[in-house]
C-alpha cells in the first residue's frame, strides 16, 4: 500500500507530512522515558524483521498481492510509541533506498501505516483486551487488531487519493477497503503466528506485558 509519487497532491503531502512528523516527535519523546539497551535492541530486530516480512508478497485471488504492514505486530510487542518509530524507519529506508513509496508521499505513507496502522491497531487491541485478560482473547485481539489495521490504513490511503483529486473518493474508498479486507487476513495470520511464537519462547519480549495472563 505504499503510495508512489504523483498520487497525492502538494496540500495532502504537506498536511500528512506535518501530522506524521509531529506524531513521530511525540513518539520519540515518549519512548525516551523507557529507553533501555534491551528496548533499542528489540526495536532494531523488529524493524529488520518487519522490513524482511514486507518483502514477502502473497497472492490473493484476482491477480493481486499483499504483504505484511506490521503495524499491529510492532504495537503489541513494543507498545505503540516504539512501534510507530520502528514502522516509520522501515518506510523511510524503503522510500530513500528502494524507491518503494514516493518521497513526496512519505508523510502520507507514514501517516497511514506507522501512525494509523500502529496507534489504530493498538487502540483496537486494547479495547478487545478489556473484555478478558485470557490467553485466547490475547490472540483474538491480535487477529482483529491486525486485520482492522490494514483496512484502516487502506481507508486513509483512499481518503488521501480522493482529497488529492486523483480519483473519485467514494469509488476509491470502496475499492481499497474491499481488497484490503482480504489482504488483512494475511496480515492477521502472519501477526498471530509471530506473536504465538514469541509468546511461547520469550514472553518477556512482549514489552507491553500482554504476554502474561491471569
Amino acid at each position, binding site marked *: 500500500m505504499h503510495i508512489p509519487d504523483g498520487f497525492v497532491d502538494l496540500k495532502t503531502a504537506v498536511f500528512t507530512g506535518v501530522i506524521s512528523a509531529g506524531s513521530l516527535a511525540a513518539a520519540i519523546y515518549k519512548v525516551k522515558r523507557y529507553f533501555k*539497551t534491551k528496548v533499542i535492541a528489540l526495536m532494531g530486530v523488529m524493524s529488520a524483521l518487519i522490513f524482511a516480512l514486507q*518483502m514477502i508478497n502473497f497472492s490473493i485471488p484476482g491477480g*493481486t*498481492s499483499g504483504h505484511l504492514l506490521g503495524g499491529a505486530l510492532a504495537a503489541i510487542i513494543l507498545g505503540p510509541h516504539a512501534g510507530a518509530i520502528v514502522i516509520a*524507519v522501515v518506510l523511510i529506508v524503503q522510500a530513500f*533506498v528502494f524507491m518503494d513509496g514516493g*518521497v*513526496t508521499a512519505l508523510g502520507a505513507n507514514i501517516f497511514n501505516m506507522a501512525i494509523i496502522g500502529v496507534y489504530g491497531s493498538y487502540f483496537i487491541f486494547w479495547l478487545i483486551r478489556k473484555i478478558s485478560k485470557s490467553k485466547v482473547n490475547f490472540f483474538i485481539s491480535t487477529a482483529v487488531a491486525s486485520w482492522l489495521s490494514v483496512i484502516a490504513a*487502506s481507508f486513509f490511503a483512499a481518503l488521501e487519493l480522493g482529497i488529492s483529486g486523483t480519483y473519485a473518493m467514494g469509488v476509491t474508498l470502496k*475499492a481499497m477497503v474491499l481488497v484490503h479486507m482480504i489482504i488483512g487476513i494475511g496480515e492477521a495470520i502472519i501477526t498471530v503466528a509471530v506473536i504465538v511464537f514469541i509468546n511461547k519462547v520469550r514472553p518477556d519480549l512482549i514489552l507491553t506485558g500482554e504476554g502474561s495472563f491471569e
Partner: protein
Amino acid sequence: MTERKNYTFVLVGIIAALTIAMLISVFASSFPDGLEKVAENLGFIGNSREIVPESFFLIPDYTFRAVGSELWQVSLAGMSGVLIILAFFGIIYLIYKAVNKKR
C-alpha cells in the same frame, strides 16, 4: 545470564530477518499489490510520477543491479535493507551506551 539471553534473541532475530529477506523473498508474488491493482482498475496508475530520478536510489525496486542473476538481485537487496536498518539502530544503541556511561 539475562545479558546472554538478550544476545540470543538479537542473534536469532537477525538470522530470521536475513533468512526471510534473502531466501523467502525470491518466492514472493509479483502480482500488483492492493493499491496498484485499484489504481490499474480505476485507471489512475499512470498518475505515478518519478519526482526523484531513479539514479538517486541505491537499490531501486529491490533490484541489486551490481549482479546479473535475478535471484541474487532480490537476495542482496533484502540483505542490504536488513543491514541498513540494523546499522541505524546499532548506531543509536552505541550512542545511548556512550551517553549513559558518562553520567
